[in-house]
């Protein structure tokens, strides 16, 4: 009886969803067309106004830079929350050698990890620093840099990972990234313009030194995102190592 009731409820819900979805899809613009014109206007204006060849970067870090600041704050708070929840049980220091004994890696993984590490870091730095010239930017480059740190964990062991990119480095890096964004925003006020106004010279389009504050904002976001993802990873990995340790030595 309960099964039949649940089935009836599901059928009603699925039918309603299908009708609403179909209705909504019928109202969509044709493939490749849009109802709004803002995108076309910005795409046409961005190179002349900001000397930037990457429209997405100009929108996220200039035209709506304050939205990006909010997004960065969300990540910042999320990382802080993860640290608060997971760090409190880390009172006792990690057992020496715990990373090596509990998380074995093969020679192949170590070799590939170490060989890929410089490539990934270079790619991450490139993506961060060219966010106003080509697709990419602070967020994309930041997560690539963070995945480079993950490779370091795979290739080495947790203790090396923990020592090299640990909280004493990650915490300040994340805070400097977040604070740097705010400082660049306040610089607009100092120059007599609005908060996050693009007050630096725009340079010539296509150059790495172009777009005013956009590349600087990309750098701060790259620092914040990279450090934030690494911090989350460290907290989670430390949890794994502790769980495994407890299993090995009850």
């Amino acid at each position, binding site marked *: 009886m309960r099964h039949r009731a649940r089935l009836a409820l599901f059928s009603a819900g699925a039918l309603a969803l299908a009708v609403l979805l179909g209705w909504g899809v019928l109202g969509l613009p044709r493939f*490749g*067309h849009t109802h709004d014109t803002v995108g076309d206007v910005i795409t046409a204006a961005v190179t002349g106004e900001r000397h930037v060849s990457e429209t997405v970067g100009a929108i996220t870090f200039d035209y709506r830079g304050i939205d990006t600041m909010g997004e960065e704050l969300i990540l910042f708070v999320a990382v802080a929350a993860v640290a608060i929840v997971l760090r409190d049980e880390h009172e006792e220091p990690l057992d020496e050698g715990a990373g090596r004994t509990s998380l074995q890696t093969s020679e192949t993984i170590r070799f590939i990890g170490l060989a890929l590490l410089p490539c990934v870091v270079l790619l991450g730095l490139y993506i961060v620093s060219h966010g106003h010239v080509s697709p*990419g930017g602070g967020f*994309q480059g930041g*997560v*690539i840099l*963070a995945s480079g740190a*993950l490779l370091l964990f795979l290739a080495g062991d947790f203790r090396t990972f923990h020592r090299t990119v640990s909280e004493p480095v990650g915490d300040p890096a994340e805070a400097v990234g977040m604070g740097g964004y705010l400082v660049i925003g306040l610089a607009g006020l100092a120059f007599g313009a609005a908060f996050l106004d693009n007050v630096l010279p725009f340079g010539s389009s296509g150059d790495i030194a172009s777009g005013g504050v956009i590349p600087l904002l990309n750098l701060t976001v790259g620092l914040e995102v990279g450090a934030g*993802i690494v911090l989350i*990873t460290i907290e989670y990995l430390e949890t794994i190592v502790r769980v495994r340790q407890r299993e090995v030595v009850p």
Partner: protein
Amino acid sequence: MSDITALQALVLVLVAAGGTAVVLERDPLHQSMVAGGFGILLAVLFLVFNAPDVALSEIVVGAVILPSLVLVALTRTGKGKT
């Protein structure tokens, strides 16, 4: 913009298949790997629809970070042992 290309249609079908595969895989440990593959498919989808910025984020977030978080959660709850 123009009509949908054959490549875009193919990738859309692949994404639909990948999403179905994630749902059909019942073992959470395997599911995290299938979800990682689905993340790669989504990144390809964004790329062929002219959104390389989103594709770059999706590669790392969908294929690296999401599966690792699931793996950690499985370790914590003790369900990752096979």
